[in-house]
């Protein structure tokens, strides 16, 4: 789960990292009042869960209160990479002398968190990695021992930070790591960490990604989820315990297991060619009980782009004939109007197919292989156009 800049900076602030004393505003009037309170100049920053806000015109400096009105008016309601801006952060502007990159991330291959820093702050780290990889300094952290003081000093030295700022830098790095650990983060990033002309080191921006698997022990963070940033169907799916990601294609997919769900999407794309693709990723989990199939089918069909549905279920411990009965029940409850291709494989797959064929519902088609199922679904979607 990704946090907004203002949420990440609030958590940084609680951990003792210096952050600007900004305020969140949802209307132009609120932004105006905040700017008055904070004092000019201020920076108005779009709060959307994507990078490239600056390039899209979502970050503006306001030197006058008139500017505040203009910029807040332009930014609120703006769409950045398909996401509507509902909130802005009004931060006091800083006199920047130096911009640094500082993050704690997860190094999957090493199986350890890693402190990453660069003297090239303020630009996307992927860009730095591409253009100037030697400017990125990495220091792995033993999760059982934590981040050592000396490691933060060696990073400060490696990025050529002036010595007078080492103490402040080390403290921020240690607190950033603490923030990473205490909140079960997968990424805590400050970009840029600035040294101001007054000699203060502080986090001007903030990004945090929280491990979804740990949200059960962070109720306060789970409550920060921005439901406006996701599709309503995704919210419904999460509440039903179904893993669902909305995509832009025409064939709705319902599968048990994440790997098989991705593969089913891949087959739709492989046989769909130009113009036909998967409408979603959906993993209904083990069992494929009727009530879950009903919920999944409703979620898939709430997407108006869906012209056909492909259901691919591996019957292992749950037998395919039981799954087939569940499918018929779900069909009768949901009454879909688009064609549905069902492919059952595994234990009692033959019996399962027979149950579906004998139900004699013209919209329900069966397939024996994944290839055949994908081809049939593509045909059905093309026919429906």
């Amino acid at each position, binding site marked *: 789960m990704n946090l907004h800049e203002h949420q990440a900076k609030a958590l940084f602030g609680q951990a003792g990292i210096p952050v600007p004393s900004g305020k969140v505003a949802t209307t132009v009037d609120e932004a105006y009042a905040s700017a008055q309170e904070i004092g000019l100049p201020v920076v108005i920053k779009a709060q959307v869960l994507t990078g490239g806000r600056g390039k899209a015109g979502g970050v503006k400096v306001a030197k006058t209160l008139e500017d505040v009105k203009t910029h807040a008016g332009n930014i609120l309601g703006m769409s950045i990479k398909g996401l509507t801006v509902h909130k802005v952060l009004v931060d006091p502007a800083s006199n920047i002398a130096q911009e640094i990159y500082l993050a704690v991330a997860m190094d999957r291959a090493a199986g350890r968190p890693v402190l990453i820093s660069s003297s090239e702050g303020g630009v996307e780290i992927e860009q730095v990695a591409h253009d100037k990889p030697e400017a990125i300094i990495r220091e792995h952290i033993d999760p059982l021992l934590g981040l050592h003081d000396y490691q933060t000093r060696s990073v400060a030295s490696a990025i050529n930070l002036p010595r007078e700022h080492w103490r402040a830098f080390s403290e921020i790095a240690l607190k950033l790591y603490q923030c990473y650990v205490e909140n079960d983060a997968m990424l805590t990033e400050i970009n840029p960490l600035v040294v101001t002309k007054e000699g203060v080191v502080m986090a001007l921006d903030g990004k945090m990604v929280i491990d979804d698997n740990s949200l059960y022990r962070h109720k306060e963070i789970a409550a920060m989820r921005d439901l406006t940033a996701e599709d309503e169907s995704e919210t419904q799916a999460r509440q039903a315990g179904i893993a669902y990601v909305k995509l832009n294609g025409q064939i709705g997919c319902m599968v048990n297991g994440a790997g098989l769900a991705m593969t089913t999407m*891949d087959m739709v794309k*492989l046989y769909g060619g130009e113009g036909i693709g998967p409408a979603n990723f959906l993993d209904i989990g083990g069992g494929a009980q009727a009530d879950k199939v009903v919920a999944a089918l409703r979620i898939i069909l709430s997407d108006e782009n869906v012209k056909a549905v492909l259901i691919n279920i591996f019957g292992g411990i749950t037998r395919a004939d039981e799954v087939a009965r569940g499918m018929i029940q779900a069909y009768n409850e949901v009454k879909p109007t688009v064609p549905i291709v069902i492919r059952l494989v595994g234990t009692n797959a033959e019996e399962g197919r027979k149950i579906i064929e004998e139900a004699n519902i013209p919209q329900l088609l069966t397939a024996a292989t994944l290839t055949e199922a994908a081809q049939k679904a593509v045909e059905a979607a093309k026919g429906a156009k």
Partner: protein
Amino acid sequence: MAILADKNTKLIVQGITGREGRFHTKQMIEYGTNVVGGVTPGKGGEWVEGKPVFDTVKQAVEVTGANASIIFVPGPFAADAMFEAIDSGLDLVVCISDPVPLWDELKVFNYLKTNNKKTRLIGPNCPGLLTPGQAKIGIIPGMVGKPGNVGVVSKSGTLTYEVVYALSNAGLGQSTCVGIGGDPVPGTNFVEVLQMFEDDPQTEKVVLIGEIGGRAEIDAAEFIKKHMTKPVAAFIAGASAPPGTRMGHAGAIIEGGEGTAAQKAEALKAAGVRVADNPEQIPNLLK
């Protein structure tokens, strides 16, 4: 031979009195796995499927002589169960639990590595192992496999069943099928299992099933190129997945343009691996 588990493996089930634990204990016993007991704190003295239940792993090991455990406890308690199994000196621990917080996994992973523990951990968030005809330690449906000489290693669950089933139907039996799980930091990675298959006399060919996210398949490709003499076929799931979005598994996410299916397929092909763009092609690639 086979790897990791065979008919001599003496297994205990952690979380044996829970719904999942009870169900799969029955399934494993029916398959022929040598289940010798189980553990649920506070339920020592009970019996499940004719097997004794103990309060602690240590007691279970002392009484039954178990050398392996399978964990079915809920995700929030999985790390504790893994630590208990590791500290009890078991050779093999398979953790089915899902979801497990990444931080918990990291602690267990680093505890194993930095203390040179002998325990081999598979998972968490994995379907476990199947050595056809001998032992099933996990939730892979027994009917999918049949004994033979193909080693299968995968990040997935049902996709693995699908591929193994297709192999069996094509007359290609398996030595062992290993589901390492789809989390970002699995207890055992592709390279470690590939090494075991390379060393196993029974295994003649290998199937690797990967997916988007991370670089485990790239590392596998490098290993295959340098160290493997046995032929490998592969499939990478997620060619159609968008970047920056987690696709079900915690590890299945393309980040900063890294970890795409195309990059992985290319690295594997460069290592001489036959890569399928449709998993149903895999049996043909092994013939």
